[in-house]
């Protein structure tokens, strides 16, 4: 058992290095940093400007600016996570023709996928911190590092991390069914953006869509991040729920995502082997 775990770990480590070399480290770290820095920061700033133009920066709407910026900050994690899983698996198949060899290696396939995306997830975590810093210093959101509820923040982020990974593994494996699924990772990330409560509360969505969004862990996660960082000084999506209630919903939604993801992955994985998707010739 111990030996088996150690072997999976060394496989995971190699997959992390692979992801770094192939996807992140474009050739020059400078470029890489610029990309993982500039994109999220410019997105946050665009939203801040839009907000200012529309509201005239009235004092009463400041909690909503905080809502917007914190949501956007943590969002880069989903953006990078989901799209990197999808890009990695499709590149490995279509561009490098290596997916089949990774697939039949003893290293668990999901572990391979997580390893392959890890460096991007890490850079996404860096983006989160950077956007929060921009929010604190450039936009004067009143973030005080000493007042952050770290246990709540960490718990919420861990749960979200598990959900996002479960979703991304399953979703990226599903993409193997298509010959032209390049770029779907970005599209689905954008789509999730709508449901997540990142830039507006899910209650403004039309009824059925709001209901679907309320089953997802994402709005609860972002709500907890906002509360952990700014407590009552941020606009709340679920004003009638206590922190504990939101956390409970996040736990349940995460468990549901993991369970559903697992079932779907088993099914998709088998279907991919039945239909020969893993080494299918595709348009690249």
């Amino acid at each position, binding site marked *: *058992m111990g030996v088996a775990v150690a072997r999976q770990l*060394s*496989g995971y480590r190699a997959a992390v290095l*692979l992801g770094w070399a192939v996807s992140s480290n474009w050739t020059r770290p400078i470029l890489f940093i610029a990309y993982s820095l500039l994109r999220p920061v410019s997105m946050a700033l665009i939203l801040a400007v839009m907000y200012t133009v529309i509201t005239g920066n009235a004092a009463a709407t400041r909690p909503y600016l905080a809502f917007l910026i914190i949501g956007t900050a943590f969002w880069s994690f989903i953006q990078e996570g989901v799209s990197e899983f999808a890009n990695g698996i499709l590149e490995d198949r279509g561009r490098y023709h290596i997916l089949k060899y990774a697939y039949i290696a003893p290293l668990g396939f999901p572990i391979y996928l997580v390893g392959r995306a890890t460096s991007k997830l890490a850079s996404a975590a860096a983006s989160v911190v950077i956007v929060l810093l921009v929010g604190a210093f450039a936009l004067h959101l009143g973030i005080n590092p000493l007042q952050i509820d770290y246990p709540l923040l960490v718990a919420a982020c861990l749960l979200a991390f598990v959900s996002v990974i479960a979703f991304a593994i399953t979703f990226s494996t599903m993409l193997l069914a298509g010959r032209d699924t390049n770029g779907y990772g970005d599209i689905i990330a954008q789509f999730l953006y709508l449901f997540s409560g990142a830039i507006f509360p899910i209650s403004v969505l039309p009824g059925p869509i709001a209901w679907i969004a309320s089953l997802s862990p994402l709005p609860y996660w972002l709500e907890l991040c906002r509360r952990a960082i700014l407590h009552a000084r941020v606009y709340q999506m679920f004003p009638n729920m206590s922190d504990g209630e939101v956390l409970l919903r996040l736990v349940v939604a995460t468990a549901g995502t993991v369970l559903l993801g697992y079932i779907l992955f088993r099914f998709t994985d088998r279907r991919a*082997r039945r239909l*020969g998707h893993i080494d299918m010739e595709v348009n690249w």
Partner: protein
Amino acid sequence: MKVFFHALSPTLESLSAVSGSHPSSNSSRLAVETRRLTRVYKTRRETTTALHDVDLEVEQGELFGVLGPNGAGKTTLIKILVTLLLPTSGEAFVDSLDVVRDYKRLRNRIAMVSGGEQAGYGVLKVREQLWMFSQFYGMDSKAARRRIDELLDRLGLAEAGNKEITSLSSGMRQKMNLVRGLMTDPRVLFLDEPTVALDVGAARDVRSEVQRWMAEDPTRTVILTTHYMQEADELCDRVAIVNRGRIVAEGAPRTLKASVDEDVIVDLQLDPGTPLLDRLRAIEGVGAASVREEDGVDRFSLLLADDAVLPRVMTTVEGAGRRVSGLVRRQPTLEDAFVKLVGRSMTEEEAG
């Protein structure tokens, strides 16, 4: 924990024997066994039966060749055996493990290399790439580096090992991929057309490295597909000839060739002229005939029941107004065995 694991595994083995996932008990030394293995591909336009009731037994320690024309089903067979593809029906066992039910355990014991493709990450160096795969197989990092160096050295890639793989020739890349297959010391190694598109020298290097690797441990098994008759003949202990998803013959190359021993095999060179193949095939005593054009002349291969058939052949040739530029009697090859079994040459089968 390790002790516990080992103590548990015999129980698991016997459990699976009871539940019937094990092949018949006398096959414990079989590296590969398939029973009525069938694979159907369905696309919107058509349904192809790539493998049709294939029964195959390969013993441990064998270098086994799967020989057949394009589209015969060779790659499909390999994909099923390496757990990349599910069979439509029938069963397959590799190293006594069911490829469908026991695929996770099986992956520790096998490796696959396909020729004729440019697999690999351009930005990685050869050694990095190979090391990475060794880690996916759970090899000890240092031992893996040593093994990789040793194999690269033997295939003449010691220097290329520090290059990014985009700077490698396609032959070097194919050799690198062979190293990937060899380095993890699989129980059964699957090579899908390992020498396709290689020049003579590189193909020879690959063949001799495979043979040397097998000699290192007599329980190692290699399943190799090819459509080069000569390669199968020289390299393999036993060969299965497949055509259109079925095994049409199986045995040592020598045995397969012996099936055409009784026949008189004649190569007939004719200057270009009216088509003749069907007329030759119609002659009584002509077992099989095939033709290929080479350097502007038609080279016919004929399997004749005995010497007495030859005059009838010559009469037909002259009757058609064709001029003979050469005539030799020669030893049988696997190609002749194929032609006799299938009735057409491999090239004709590929042309469809």
